[in-house]
């Protein structure tokens, strides 16, 4: 399973053999350890690494208030006082549970494979909050074996060190930094009313332009209007669009899906992907499908809305996560109970000056 470009392998090639030896010892260690009943974590270079922040995994709203009103010292003390009380689930929790379910199915079919999801807790929370986070992870029986608590430092360097395939955070500044470094990332928002999600199938929905594809076409819409856009798309129907920040993540999902297909499990495949785009099928849809085909990628369902709101459709799909670059669509999705994640990429960002992407978080967010 190849890692996206731009992430470094780390370590030198001449120490690869010693690393292999090490890895064999780690495997033996985990397989034999009586203390852990959980399955052994995969080697990062083989796995699909999903990094989640502590505030997306758990609901830390009350604690954050303490941080904002009373400062860092009191916040850490407060967390320590409540150490044995697990947090309640946060906005990426259902997504993480769905990933774990896929892993369970993969292990059934391929017991020795390391092509699995590896969920890493990546937070710039202080290490002392770590005990409460670990207690909470145990409480919900989550398979999170790796974490980085950077005590206030930026996690971006660590994202690369862990060969991260997708990073989810509530802090849009960090998400933006990650995208600039070539790591797929999205900002998550709290969701008030949540739809009932499938617990047997991971469902991921993607917007097209500026998420899977580059924002080249959106630039045309914004600058020259819809008619020019339609003409342009028809003219360049056979020219593939350039890649967007989440293309590689869709690719890794596709690779895992194929592992089920080869074992005749297409119908009951525990991963399903959706393209939910404002494009219309007739005038601008062909280019999108042809681009995906040229990349060797598939989505299970491609839904062309021709400008209709995405909220109601998403409500029917019930994805564990929906990626879009425009806040307008994120809000529309949230209003009808869908967990939405904003991808701060491309020209769509400049057209939302009036809408704050939770900027109050970015300034005070340095320590947690």
């Amino acid at each position, binding site marked *: 399973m190849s890692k996206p470009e731009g992430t470094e392998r780390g370590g030198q090639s001449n120490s690869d053999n010693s690393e292999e030896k*090490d890895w064999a010892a780690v495997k033996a260690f985990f397989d034999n350890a009586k203390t852990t009943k959980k399955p052994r974590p995969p080697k990062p270079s083989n796995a699909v690494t999903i990094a989640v922040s502590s505030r997306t995994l758990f609901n830390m709203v009350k604690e954050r208030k303490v941080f904002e009103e009373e400062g860092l010292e009191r916040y850490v003390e407060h967390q320590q006082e409540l150490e044995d009380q697990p947090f309640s689930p946060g906005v990426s929790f259902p997504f993480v549970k769905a990933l774990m379910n896929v892993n369970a199915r993969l292990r059934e079919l391929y017991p020795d494979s390391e092509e699995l999801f590896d969920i890493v807790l990546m937070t710039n929370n202080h290490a002392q909050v770590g005990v409460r986070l670990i207690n909470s992870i145990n409480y919900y029986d989550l398979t*999170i074996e790796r974490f980085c608590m950077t005590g206030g430092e930026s996690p971006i360097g660590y994202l690369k060190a862990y060969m991260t395939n997708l990073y989810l955070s509530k802090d849009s500044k960090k998400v933006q930094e990650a995208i600039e470094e070539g790591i797929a990332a999205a900002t998550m928002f709290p969701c008030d009313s949540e739809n009932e999600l499938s617990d047997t199938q991971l469902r991921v929905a993607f917007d097209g332009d500026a998420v899977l594809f580059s924002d080249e076409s959106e630039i045309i819409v914004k600058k020259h209007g819809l008619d020019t856009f339609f003409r342009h798309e028809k003219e360049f129907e056979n020219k593939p669009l350039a890649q967007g920040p989440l293309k590689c993540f869709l690719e890794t999902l596709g690779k895992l899906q194929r592992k089920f297909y080869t074992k005749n499990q297409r119908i009951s495949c525990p991963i399903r992907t959706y393209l939910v785009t404002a494009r219309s099928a007739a005038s601008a849809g062909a280019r999108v499908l042809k681009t995906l085909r040229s990349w060797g990628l598939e989505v299970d369902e491609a839904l062309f809305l021709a400008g209709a709101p995405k909220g109601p459709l998403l409500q029917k799909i019930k994805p564990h996560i929906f990626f879009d670059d425009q806040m307008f669509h994120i809000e529309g999705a949230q209003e009808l109970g869908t967990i939405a994640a904003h991808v701060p990429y491309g020209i769509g960002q400049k057209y939302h000056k009036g809408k704050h992407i939770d900027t109050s978080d970015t300034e005070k967010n340095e320590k947690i």
Partner: protein
Amino acid sequence: MDDEKNCTGPLIIALQYNDLFDLDSMSASTNTDDALPKGRAVTFIKAVQIVNERLVEQKETESLLFEVILIAKECSEEIKMKIVESVKYYGLEIGKFFFCKKEELINTLQSNKVKLFLSTDRDDVCEALHTGIPAALLYDQCDDHVLKVIISGDSIGFTEDSLDSLSDFGFSETQIETFKAAKICMKEFAVLIGQMRRRFGRENSPLCICVLTAWGSTNVCASALKTLRGWGLDVDEAFCLAGAPCSPILAVVKPHILWDCGLHNMRDLATQS
């Protein structure tokens, strides 16, 4: 010494001169009047000096300060002079110099109540640990103004029983003994550095302590965090790798002091320079 009381310093750290100066880079054509070329430990000492400055800023009569002593094995008179001169030249605050024979290293460390022996040589570190002297690896560091210490979460978080069972997985007796010895040695250092850390607030501290659990589960890491807290050391950063390669993470953290106890491959550390 009674490490439960709020102790008085200094926190003595011993270095060897071949880590302080890079003798390998000297050639025959090097001008003998120049100071010796800088080695890895110079940036470490500068970072230590900044911590000391900040401690004294807060309290003029602070006694819990770092003190660095330099050990030189088997030196000619000429080199001895150059060492003393070069130390002065670079403005390094070195408390004492010890010129001794190779076999006298351990004795020198013990008789000077060294709280930490730092070396880039893994064998020296292991030997010291086995004789009960706290020892750690002097890692490659960047020119930051924060002194970074990494403590092994595996060493602190694992229990006695699980340590013994490691022999089933291919670890030699020596490695396991090193591991156990390190845990005992680490406590005294941890208590002192914990007190020092508490002189500063959580933000803007010139001293940063991290826990790295390379092999153990998250529970081992949680156990390490709680144990260290019990010793008075509130760690700033924590990493749990569950077997993932260490070097990429270390390349980001860039510690000065790495309490590695041999449970993960030190070979890939040695190739970092």
